[in-house]
């Protein structure tokens, strides 16, 4: 039974391709477009960020994605999270996804910390009851104390990151998507946040994460996908792929 559950495919990426069109200049007004068209300059440079990428992630696995800058790592994460729609191919997801691509992107700086917990939580897809129940936990983890009733435009950047991290990691999602492991705040909070990330990753959650830190990848991952200029260069056992990548 245990074994069978592990075999269940939770994310299936099938022949995904993503094409970006780069016009010479990004055209953002009608006048510009008309003049460009008249001059016959409306040409696009086609650019495939991903080409025929396929891989599968099983339930409970921790899969690392490695590759050099511009290899398409963030693009594939965005496609899996549903933010970008692939030009071709499909992605099948079997559970709720919490993307941690950038913390605190839904913050409104005129609202208080408390109001932002609910706003940001709603954006991440948490329910009202869940947030009500977890509110104290979030507040305690963020160490914000009475500052929580202050508009967050008065927060320091460390306070903002602590709040954002606490909201994002309070949930136990089925699939967690992480772009670089986040360690924020002072040394104490960094240790705490790293511990929380590790706890999430080892707690049966399926994790997909991008990192340039090979030590972290070796430590955490069951499997690694190596992307190289938009194609899967190598996929398999952590040690094997990491060794190959080093060279």
């Amino acid at each position, binding site marked *: 039974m245990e074994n069978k559950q592990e075999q269940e495919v939770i994310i299936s990426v099938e022949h995904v391709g993503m094409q970006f069109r780069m016009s010479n200049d990004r055209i*953002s*007004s009608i*006048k510009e477009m008309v003049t460009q068209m008249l001059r016959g300059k409306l040409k696009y440079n086609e650019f495939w960020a991903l080409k025929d990428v396929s891989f599968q992630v099983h339930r409970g696995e921790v899969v690392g994605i490695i590759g050099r800058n511009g290899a398409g790592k963030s693009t594939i994460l965005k496609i899996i999270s549903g*933010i970008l729609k692939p030009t071709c191919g499909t992605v099948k997801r079997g559970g709720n996804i919490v*993307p941690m691509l950038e913390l605190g992107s839904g913050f409104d700086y*005129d609202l208080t910390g408390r109001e932002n917990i609910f*706003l940001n939580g*709603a954006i991440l*897809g948490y329910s009202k009851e*869940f947030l009500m129940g977890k509110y104290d936990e979030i507040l305690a983890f963020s160490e914000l104390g009475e500052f929580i009733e202050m508009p967050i435009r008065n927060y320091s950047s460390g306070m903002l990151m602590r709040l954002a991290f606490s909201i994002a990691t309070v949930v136990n999602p089925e699939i967690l998507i992480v772009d670089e492991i986040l360690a924020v705040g002072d040394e104490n909070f960094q240790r705490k946040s790293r511990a929380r990330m590790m706890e999430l990753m080892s707690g049966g959650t399926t994790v997909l994460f991008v990192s340039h830190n090979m030590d972290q990848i070796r430590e955490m991952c069951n499997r690694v996908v190596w992307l190289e200029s938009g194609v899967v260069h190598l996929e398999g056992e952590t040690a094997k792929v990491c060794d190959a990548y080093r060279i």
Partner: protein
Amino acid sequence: MNKHKYNLQKIVWAVCAGYLVYGAIFSLIAWEAIRQSRIASIYSVLFLAVGGVIAGYGAKLVHYEKRGKTCWGLSLIHTASKYEFLIEQLVSRDFKVKYKRSILGVFWSFLNPLMMMVVQYVVFANFFFRGSDMKHYAIYLLAGIVMFNGFNDCTTQAMRAITSNATLITKVYVPKYIYPITKVMSASLNVILSLVPLILVTVVYGLFNNLYLKPSILLLPIVLVMFLFFIMGIAFIVSSLMVFFHDIEFLWGVLTTMWMYATPIIYPVSMLQTGSRLGNIALAVVNINPLTHYVNFVRDILINGCSPALSEYGICFAWAAVSMLAGIAVFRKTQDKFVLYI
């Protein structure tokens, strides 16, 4: 996470009961208009038939839910309950942020239209249409202003719904139609709040000029809902155009000004009936203009104290439907490209 937060049977019962009760109220108030329309003889049959269709569809939904099948209506209810909390949060954010740093706060929602009404009334009623023999010109003017300002505010704010949430759209997956919808909802809350001073002014004005609110005011929700859908459709179009062409922002200002003059807000329609060629063209434009029909609907309710002709309901509904369909079509076609352009 939370799959069945809603109780479908309750929703279906509430909708059916709502239809019966409000339908009965509507039939009573609009009886005169119904009697004069062409469908007078079949009205009762029609009323029951629509009720039957609603109840039948509700039964189908309940049946489908039990069998685990999905259909259009079910997925709509499901999405609505799933994103209810997010919509609530986004609307309350817009509302809170708007008045966060002002001393009078939400009170501005009443005060602002009230002061605008006073200014416009003084200017237009005293200087431009002083000799006008129109009855209750003050209310005529104010109803027009409130409705048009509502349209203007909603569309202008909804226009930036996608572009101003760019950071969110590129970072988290949320259905993108949520953003224009919440913007229209928060802006229309203000429209509803500005109706309070309009009604207050009507009551106070009426005390001195023999104009009394009649039960016809209960028809206001009907026109407001249709108006809201009309605005929503436009909001979908302008918010998606805004992503690709920022020029829309400036064009829209000009366009709404033109639209304002094409709507009988400050002038009576009778002014156009001069018989000249230009007058006829203007009259045609005003008649085809959807806003004319929404504005006049409200005026009929407030000033004449009766329901407008049934055909007006048809026109208002048709424009709302056309606008929504066009809006959804444009938005669906373009939404996948938003991420690439914002």
